[in-house]
């Protein structure tokens, strides 16, 4: 009976508000203006595609095609007839740029273009326009019957339980559909072929043309058919027509694809921009696949007791099959054993172990949540459910996109923030052609780039003020430093409505980021020192050689002077009247000086001879450590994935001399499932 009580009001809410709510408050979802709407639409579709590939363990191949249309072209494409104006004389309607309520906001300007001279054309073309976005992937596709539901209904996906996901709101592509509806009125076209794994070729292909009924939050199916897959179509192809602005967000879109290539080196990414009226502005961007190593999919885990709230507990109660409270707590929450559940129940009044969880009142739930938050001895949520990119891939991604001179990566140990596990991976690069001098911070959350509001972000703050760059032999003003921070978590603690940054008040995350960056810097320092030594050795002979002419000339000059003085009979003159004690004074050994003068006279000693001798000396006295340094420099980095959460002694094999602990392959980098780790 509580089920009906709970679900009926929530049902009404979900049915009524979401699509309309987001249509009205689209800035929250990243649709602030035309430029950003274009950017966010592309981004949502691309991330959808990545998910589709990764869920089926397929190496992603994603292409984005953006075509820009002026309104005239758009009308042609959309099949709208160029209606002759009834009031051809009514020019002032457009000159005043009064908004015509039924038409899109961009229309006044675009209408001008159709009427007026071509001088305005460039200006208008660089501004708001219509775009056809086609995103195609090679992922798992969608099941024929589920297509309308998956795309046409906002918040239709269920997200109970926690899992590391890319989306911010669970809106995915749906928001793009709403935007398409809102800005162009055009339906979405989907072509998809469903398959369960990466190897089989789907037998059937579906085509679906969808519109969305915003007030009812329901899809309107305009076309929905299935046909035999003769052309071997794979994946999903989404096509939509939206209003947008390429000029203002071009650099952001390019930056997004570029950073996505860093964090997704196992994907092939392609971006094509086509401008029908101005082909000189076309753009093509391609990132080849660089790695075959795909991170394992993130696992869904139970809620950690310290992360729950009243609503979550209520939802869990609705779903659970547990008949009593002990079972409920120990099966639905992580880190709670039956013994622990009993201890917890013992702390609560009016509640006993055998009670059906559905009989809990709101007050009981509130007290339970308060209790769960207070208990300190729960095992911290572990990071094994997360799917970080891995240092190997991160290294490759950065190497590939930025081509830096030096790069170091690090992964900090998993930790928890507010009951959600998180894991920080970081990389620090030095140099690279496209990099700017100073610190550039590139941020990723759950393996998608964060481009906006970097100033307040925890990674930016740490990189700029918490790292003592100079102690790592890095000049933070003049060196080209790239700082890459990738945070994955079952719940990223975003700040602000747009969810574009992570606040630095999350102390645990801040410290983890700092540790990871410091670890990178430490590695770099070692290599920088070695590199400097190597460079010094190389430059040594050059530097020394530079002074040979000065030395030879000076030395020869003094010797020649001595010879001249001797010839003038000056060398043993009778001017010795100084008070100096003869013993202290530097005296010329007559025999040696005579020999030298003889050599000088005969030409046996000359400047060239000195030069030769010095060159020889430099060649003979190369320091011997050079070879070691070169060997160290040629070495390729080896990436070992640390295994955390190994403190489960359940299957330990005990012996007098050692303990075997069999471990599972937590990441697919570890090939064998039974590779034992020796402890003790």
């Amino acid at each position, binding site marked *: 009976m509580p089920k009906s009580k709970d679900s009926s009001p929530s049902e009404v809410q979900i049915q009524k508000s979401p699509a309309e709510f987001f249509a009205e408050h689209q800035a929250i979802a990243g649709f602030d203006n035309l430029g950003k709407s274009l950017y966010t639409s592309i981004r949502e579709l691309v991330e959808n595609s990545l998910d589709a590939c990764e869920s089926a363990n397929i190496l992603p191949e994603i292409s984005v095609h953006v075509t820009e249309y002026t309104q005239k072209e758009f009308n042609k494409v959309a099949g709208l007839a160029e209606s002759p104006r009834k009031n051809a004389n009514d020019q002032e309607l457009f000159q005043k740029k009064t908004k015509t309520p039924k038409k899109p906001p961009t229309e006044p300007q675009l209408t001008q273009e159709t009427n007026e001279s071509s001088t305005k054309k460039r200006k208008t073309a660089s501004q708001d326009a219509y775009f056809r976005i086609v995103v195609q992937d090679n992922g798992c596709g969608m099941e024929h019957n589920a297509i309308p539901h998956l795309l046409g209904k906002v918040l239709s996906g269920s997200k109970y339980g926690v899992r590391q996901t890319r989306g911010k709101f669970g809106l995915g592509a749906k928001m793009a559909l709403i935007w398409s509806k809102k800005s162009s009125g055009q339906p979405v076209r989907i072509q998809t072929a469903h398959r369960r794994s990466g190897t089989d070729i789907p037998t059937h292909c579906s085509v679906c043309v969808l519109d969305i009924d915003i007030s009812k939050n329901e899809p309107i199916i305009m076309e929905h058919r299935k046909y035999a897959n003769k052309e071997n179509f794979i994946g999903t192809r989404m096509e939509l027509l939206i209003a947008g602005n390429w000029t203002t967000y071009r650099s952001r879109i390019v930056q997004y694809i570029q950073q996505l290539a860093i964090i997704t080196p196992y994907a092939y990414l392609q971006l094509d921009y086509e401008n029908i009226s101005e082909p000189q502005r076309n753009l093509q961007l391609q990132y080849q696949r660089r790695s075959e190593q795909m991170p394992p999919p993130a696992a869904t885990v139970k809620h950690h007791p310290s992360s729950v709230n009243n609503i979550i507990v209520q939802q869990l109660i609705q779903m659970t099959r547990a008949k009593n409270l002990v079972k409920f707590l120990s099966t639905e929450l992580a880190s709670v054993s039956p013994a622990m559940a009993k201890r917890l129940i013992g702390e609560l009044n009016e509640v006993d172990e055998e009670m059906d969880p559905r009989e809990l009142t709101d007050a009981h739930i509130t007290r339970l949540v308060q209790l769960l938050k207070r208990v300190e001895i729960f095992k911290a949520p572990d990071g094994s459910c997360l799917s970080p990119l891995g240092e190997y891939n991160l290294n490759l991604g950065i190497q590939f996109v930025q081509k830096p001179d030096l790069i170091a990566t690090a992964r900090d140990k998993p930790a928890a923030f507010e009951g959600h596990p998180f894991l920080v991976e970081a990389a620090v690069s030095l140099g690279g052609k496209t990099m700017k001098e100073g610190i550039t911070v590139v941020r990723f959350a759950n393996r998608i780039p964060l481009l906006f509001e970097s100033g307040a972000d925890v990674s930016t703050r740490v990189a700029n003020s918490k790292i003592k760059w100079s102690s790592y032999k890095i000049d933070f003003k003049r060196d080209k430093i790239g700082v890459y921070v990738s945070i994955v978590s079952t719940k990223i603690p975003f700040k602000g409505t747009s969810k574009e940054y992570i606040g630095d008040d999350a102390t645990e995350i801040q410290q983890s980021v700092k540790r990871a960056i410091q670890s990178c810097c430490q590695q770099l320092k070692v290599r920088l020192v070695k590199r400097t030594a190597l460079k010094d050795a190389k430059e040594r002979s050059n530097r*020394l050689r530079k*002074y040979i002419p000065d030395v030879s000339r000076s030395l020869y000059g003094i*010797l020649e*002077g*001595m010879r001249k003085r001797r010839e003038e009979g000056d060398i043993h003159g009778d001017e010795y009247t100084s008070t100096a004690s003869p013993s202290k004074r*530097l005296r010329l*050994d007559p025999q040696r000086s005579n020999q030298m003068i003889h050599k000088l006279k005969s030409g046996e000693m000359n400047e060239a001879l000195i030069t030769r*001798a010095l060159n020889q000396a430099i060649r003979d006295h190369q320091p011997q450590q050079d070879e070691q340094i070169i060997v160290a420099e040629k070495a390729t980095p080896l990436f070992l994935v640390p295994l955390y959460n190994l403190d489960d002694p359940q299957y330990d094999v005990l012996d007098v001399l050692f303990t075997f602990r069999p471990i599972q392959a937590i990441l697919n980098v570890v090939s064998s499932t039974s590779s034992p780790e020796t402890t003790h």
Partner: protein
Amino acid sequence: MSSRKRQTTPAATSQESTTTASSSKRRVVAIAPDADAVLRECRKLRDVMRSSSNETSDKASRVIPEGVPSSIVEVDELKAPEVLEGMESIALDIAQQVLSGKGFSMEIPSRAATNQLYVKEWDRIVLGGKRSSRSFLNVKESRKAAITLRVLQLIHAVLMKRIHITKRDLFYTDVKLFVDQAESDGVLDDVATMVGCTRSNLNVVASDKGLVVGRVQFVEDDDPIDCTRMGVGGKAIPPYIDKIENITSDAEFILLVEKEAAYMRMAEDRFYHRYPCIIITAKGQPDIATRMFLKRLKEELKIPVLGLVDSDPYGLKILSVYMSGSKNMSYDSSSLTTPDIKWLGLRPSDLDRYDLPDQCRLDMTENDIKTGKELLKEDFIQKNPEWMKELEIMVSD
């Protein structure tokens, strides 16, 4: 409590002399009527100096006192051929090293602060026995080695031509190698210590800095000079000290002035006629030429030297450089220091003794106090308890 114990040199000392202005264009300044009384102390000092002058004083002695390491570096006045010979000897040694294919390296007495020691018996700072080597094959030292050799050669040429050049001249001879004048200047002292001669023996001089005016006459490079007839500003002290001879004077004392302004005041007032004296200034920290000139005057004329310096740590420091030498030139302290200069004033203790009004007193700056505290630690200040007392008044509260 903010007591003010610093005061600028009172230019007022000679104010009264203007009363004797005559009608003629050239102002005749007569000897002050109270000269005998004022100079009584001064004459006493002079008499003591002259009577003891025959005895060989400890300070002039070259015998190394007990407790001082025998390895200390002291340079001598050398004649040009001796310097040349020393340089050639160094060059021969280097040539031999080079020809044997080992590059070359030079041993140079270290002039670092840790290698300076104060010898109480001599009352001056000398250079200790530490040596550092400069090797051509060492990347960090090769440039310095090249510069040293180049300076050695340039000075060898200068000495052979029997000319003098300034430090600036030397720098301009090979700007490309030296880059910065500090480089060639620094190496100059290395060359002097290597050869074992004074810096002026290298015929490298600094440009004029010191001024002299008053009752002294001498011959400079065959030109007779009378420092009472050098106009208002006085005569620049020439860097070629060895070209000065036949010093004569009827002065009763030498007045050493720190500030050029005070010097100008007295020169214009022709103070040296009211109280027969020689007035010298080096405009602050003294250069080598002024120090050598002062030493020369005192040794030849045997008259007391009175120091008129600011009543602040810098004034005392300047006085100590005249007396005990500077750390940079410690290898040549024997020819640069003038012992036994009397601190005329104004002393910190005088401020209250003569009840000077607050308006005339300046606060000590933080920097002054810092310098004062450093001076308190120096041996050459500690040997003089009276000075210590005055200095402590300066730095206290």
